[in-house]
C-alpha cells in the first residue's frame, strides 16, 4: 500500500477479509500452555459447575480463574444463574471479544464481591454477523462494554437499546478490532 495508490488502500480491507491461506510459519515451534487450576480455583470451578449444570460445554482454567464455555444462546441464562445463584457473581468485571478469524469469542469475567471469586464465561460466535444477547438487564456495566464491542468487532447485542458508536464516530467504516482491518500507512487527514 503506497501513498501514490489510494485505490489499492481502499480495497485492501476487502482483500484481507477474504480467507487467505496462511504462509508457513518460520521460527521456533509454538508451545501450548498447560491449564492448571490451583486449590482455590478448583473450589470455584466445582461451585460454578454445580451452578450451571448442563449448560457447560467445556471447562478448564488457570491459577484461580476457572472458565466455562457455554452456547451463545444460553449465555444470558448462564450469566443470570451466576448472578442470582449461590456463587453470587454481582459484578461484571470485564467483557471482551477475541477475533479468531474463523469465529469471534466473547469472554465475560465475573467477580463476586461477597465471596471474592472470579469466573470466566466464554461463548463462540460465528464470524459472519455475530450476535449475542445483551446483559444490560443484569449489569449496568454491560452497556458501555457492549457498545465498545459493537464498535470494534461488529458484534450485535439484541436487547441493548443504544448501539450508537462509543469510541468511534458516526460514519466510521469497518470494525478496527478485527484482524482483517489494516493498520495505517501514511495518510493525509
Amino acid at each position: 500500500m503506497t501513498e501514490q495508490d489510494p485505490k489499492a488502500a481502499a480495497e485492501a480491507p476487502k482483500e484481507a477479509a477474504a480467507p487467505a491461506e496462511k504462509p508457513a510459519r518460520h521460527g521456533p515451534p509454538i508451545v501450548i500452555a498447560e491449564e492448571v487450576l490451583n486449590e482455590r480455583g478448583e473450589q470455584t470451578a466445582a461451585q460454578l459447575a454445580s451452578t450451571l449444570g448442563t449448560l457447560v460445554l467445556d471447562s478448564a482454567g488457570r491459577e484461580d480463574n476457572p472458565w466455562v464455555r457455554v452456547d451463545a444462546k444460553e449465555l444470558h441464562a448462564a450469566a443470570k444463574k451466576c448472578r442470582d445463584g449461590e456463587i453470587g457473581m454481582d459484578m461484571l468485571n470485564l467483557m471482551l471479544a477475541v477475533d479468531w478469524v474463523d469465529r469471534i469469542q466473547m469472554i465475560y469475567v465475573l467477580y463476586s464481591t461477597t465471596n471474592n471469586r472470579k469466573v470466566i464465561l466464554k461463548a463462540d460466535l460465528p464470524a459472519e454477523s455475530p450476535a449475542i444477547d445483551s446483559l444490560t438487564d443484569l449489569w449496568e456495566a454491560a452497556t458501555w462494554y457492549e457498545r465498545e464491542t459493537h464498535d470494534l468487532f461488529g458484534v450485535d447485542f439484541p436487547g441493548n437499546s443504544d448501539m450508537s458508536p462509543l469510541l468511534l464516530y458516526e460514519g466510521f467504516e469497518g470494525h478496527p478490532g478485527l484482524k482483517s482491518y489494516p493498520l495505517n500507512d501514511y495518510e493525509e487527514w
Partner: protein
Amino acid sequence: MTTESQFETVDMMLNMGPQHPATHGVFRMVLKVDGEKVIDVIPHIGYLHRGTERLAEVETYGQVITLFDRVDYIANLNNELAFVRAGEQIMEVEAPERAQYIRVILAELNRVASHLLFIGTYAIDLGAMTPVMYGFRERERIQNLFEHVTGARMMHNYMRIGGVKADVPDDFVPWVRQLIGEVRKGVEECDKLLSTNEVFLGRTRGVGVIDGPTAISCGLTGPSLRGSGVAYDVRKDDPYEIYPYLNYKVPVGENGDCWDRYYLRMLECYESLSMIEQCLDQFPEGPIMAAGRRIARPPAGEVFSHSENPRGDLGVYLVSDGTDKPYRVKIRPPSFCNLVGLATMTRGSYIADAVAILGSLDIVLGEVDR
C-alpha cells in the same frame, strides 16, 4: 386564560466539552436540564481513542510496555506493573524479591502522585486555586525521584517481564526516606487546607450519592466503590507482589458521596507512604531480573490478571498464540467503568454539582478511551 400546563415546555440540552477545563481531558457530556436540575446525562467518549489494544497486537511484548505507560498517563508505573504481571503469569516466571520491592515502592509513590494531582484538580473544579499548587509541588518531588531512578519524568518504560530494567541508584533508600517526609508534610498541608473547609464540605457532602449495590452493578472499583462502603481492593482481595507482607489498612467510606470519595484518596496517600516506609525497612539485596530468556515468547494460552490502580481495578486479559507478539490485549480500564456510574450519580442534582461529581470520579481519558 392559559395555564401553565398548556405551555409546551422542552428540556434544554446543555453541552459540556470536549474542550472544557473541568472535564479532565477531552470528555464530553450532554446534560438534559430542567431549570437548574439535571434530568439526565449522556456522556460521549472516544475523543482520545488511540487504538492501543489493536496496536498492541502488532508490537512485541517489550514494546507493549511503552503503550501501557501511555494508557493511564497519571499513574504510569501502576499500569506498567499491570501488564508486566500479566506477562509474567503467561510466561510462568516470577520476578526476584528485590525487583518486586522496587516495583511496589515506585507504584505506591505513583499512587500518591496521582492522588495529589486529583486533590489539586478537584479543588480547582470546586473553585479553589491554592491546593493544586501544593499538590504539584509534591508531585514534582516524586517525579524528580522517578527521573533519578528510571530516567524519565512520566513515560518510564522501567519494568520488564520478570523484573525491572536496572537496579536503583545507591542513594535510593535515603532519597525515598527524605521524600516521604516531605510529601507527608505536603499531604497534611492539603488535608488541613481542604478537607474540613466549610465551602468544600458544602459542595461535596451529600452530592452524587451512589449506593453499594448500584455501584457494583455499574462496575465501579477503587475509591469510587469503596466510598459507597464496599471494601474491594485488589491488593487485599487478590494479593500480588509483596503486598501480603505489608501492614496497611484500606479505608472505606460510608455515604458514597463526593466527600467520601475525595477523603478516601487523602487517606490512601498516608497509607501508601507508610507502606513505602515498610518496604524500605525490608528492602532486600539480590538480583533484579529473573533468569531466563531475554525475548518474551510465551506459550499459547490466555491469562487474566488485575492489580489496583489509583482509580480502581485495572485488569489485563492477555491472549497469546505462541509468537513474540500478543494475539489480543484487553485492558479493563477502571475509569471507563467508573464513568458508567456517572449518569446514576448526577441525575437529580444541580448543574454546578455535575462538575463536582465528575471530578470526584478522577477519570483519565487516556484510560477511558484507550
